[in-house]
């Protein structure tokens, strides 16, 4: 905790400095509120307009958390299938990359046409943005297993299933967690985008309402909320990672420095 405070003051200082520059520059040049509100006005709106957005937050949290959980399960399952079945990998890997080239903003209205305005199309959007980093990270982790350990397991007669669960899976966890962290921040973004398209609750709705009525300060409140939510998800994954990968934080160097020849 102490080290977090020790490291944390630098970005915090930069942030405060930026806000001070923003505040003073906007006052100095007399910029109208609807164009760019002052940081102090945004803070004031965040406090006074509290009741306006609390229910929206819960809705977005539910949506993004659902999408995220489904997304990482899909991501991990896809990674395992592609890795364990080489035929599937050859057939589907290029399609997987292509699926990421479709802009979400184009795909989302289509999903609404197909699945209506309910929860389902929104969850699908989040799953689509979340599963990809998880799959890629997990696949990388599976592939980069240590040769010496693999050779050892083969020599003592481990089956492919044993090799996967005892070596490749635990070995991929550090890499997988990087993917999970990226996906965590994507999930909030995905939730907000899907809410723009047609929802009656959510930070995305709050944001659309605010921007269409030129309540620019509320738009910024929404941005801050999205950031806080993303950071929160990130922190949760970081905490889980720390407890799962305890072996990494203990002792000094990780590698044993010698290789098999």
């Amino acid at each position, binding site marked *: 905790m102490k080290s977090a405070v020790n490291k944390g003051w630098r970005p915090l200082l930069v942030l405060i400095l930026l806000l001070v520059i923003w505040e003073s520059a906007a006052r100095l040049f007399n910029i109208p509120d609807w164009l760019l509100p002052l940081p102090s006005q945004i803070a004031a709106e965040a406090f006074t307009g509290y009741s306006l957005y609390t229910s929206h937050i819960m809705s977005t949290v539910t949506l993004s958390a659902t999408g995220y959980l489904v997304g990482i399960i899909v991501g991990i399952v896809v990674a395992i299938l592609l890795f364990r079945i080489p035929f599937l990998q050859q057939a589907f890997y290029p399609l997987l990359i292509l699926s990421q080239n479709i802009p979400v903003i184009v795909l989302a209205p289509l999903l609404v046409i197909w699945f209506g305005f309910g929860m389902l199309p929104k969850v699908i959007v989040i799953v689509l943005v979340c599963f990809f980093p998880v799959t890629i990270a997990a696949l990388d982790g599976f592939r980069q297993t*240590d040769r*010496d350990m693999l050779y050892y397991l083969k020599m*003592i*007669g481990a089956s492919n299933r044993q090799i996967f669960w*005892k070596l490749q899976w*635990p070995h991929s966890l550090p890499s997988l967690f990087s993917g999970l962290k990226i996906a965590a921040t994507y999930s909030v973004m995905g939730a907000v985008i899907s809410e723009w398209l047609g929802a009656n609750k959510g930070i995305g709705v709050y944001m659309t309402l605010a921007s269409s009525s030129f309540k620019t300060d509320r738009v910024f409140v929404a941005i801050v909320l999205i950031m806080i939510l993303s950071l929160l998800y990130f922190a949760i994954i970081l905490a889980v990672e720390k407890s799962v990968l305890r*072996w990494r934080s*203990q002792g000094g160097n*990780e590698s044993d420095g010698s290789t*098999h020849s």
Partner: protein
Amino acid sequence: MGRLTLESLSKSYGSNHVLQDITLSVKEGEFVSIVGPSGSGKSTIFQLIGGLYTPDSGTISLDGSVLNNSRGHISYMPQSPALFPWRTVLQNVELSAEIAGTKQNRTKTLELIKSAGLSGYEDAYPNELSGGMKQRVSFIRSLNAPQSIICLDEPFSALDEFTRLEMQQWLLSIWETYKKSILFITHDIDEALFLSDRIIVLSDKPAIVKKEITVPFARPRSEELLMSDPFLILKREIYNLLRG
């Protein structure tokens, strides 16, 4: 149990003729070393015994049953410790029995860890251990396996001279209590003479068995043996065999 026999084993990879007509055996509870120039196909012999590849001709048998291209009959200790960093010392030692699918014997495992001088490190992770300690864990992991024969592939070659001698003495003492059959690959003549009952000298590629030497020294062996005349005479003989 633990009688391993290789009979006229040959193997080539394409035009690369690695092994030719290799015949050797390890008796129950015997310590046999294979020495040969580097790149002479010593590790290939292990890969065939381990069932990773099929020999072109010849048979490998353990206690009378043929095990060409079949896996899981031997225990193995690699050159690098290859400990699993996410497993504690105890979990690493238990891995070999886990893979073989046999029941864990916690008392025996803890006893092995104690005999490796690692009491108190049961819950430590490998990155907290020194190089010598890791190799000891790696060896007791191979001892903890249910298989009756252990193949050791130049296990001490990455250690410094003093640690190596210490490890060799420790290996002998623990082997004398557990008495498993051992097939040991090395390019270090001293090591082979100090540890083994018999030494198989291989030639350069394609490897053939040049000579089989029975090591006459009584056990338990001590460090002074390394400087004694009979030891040095045998060492010279093997050295000359390897050179020409």
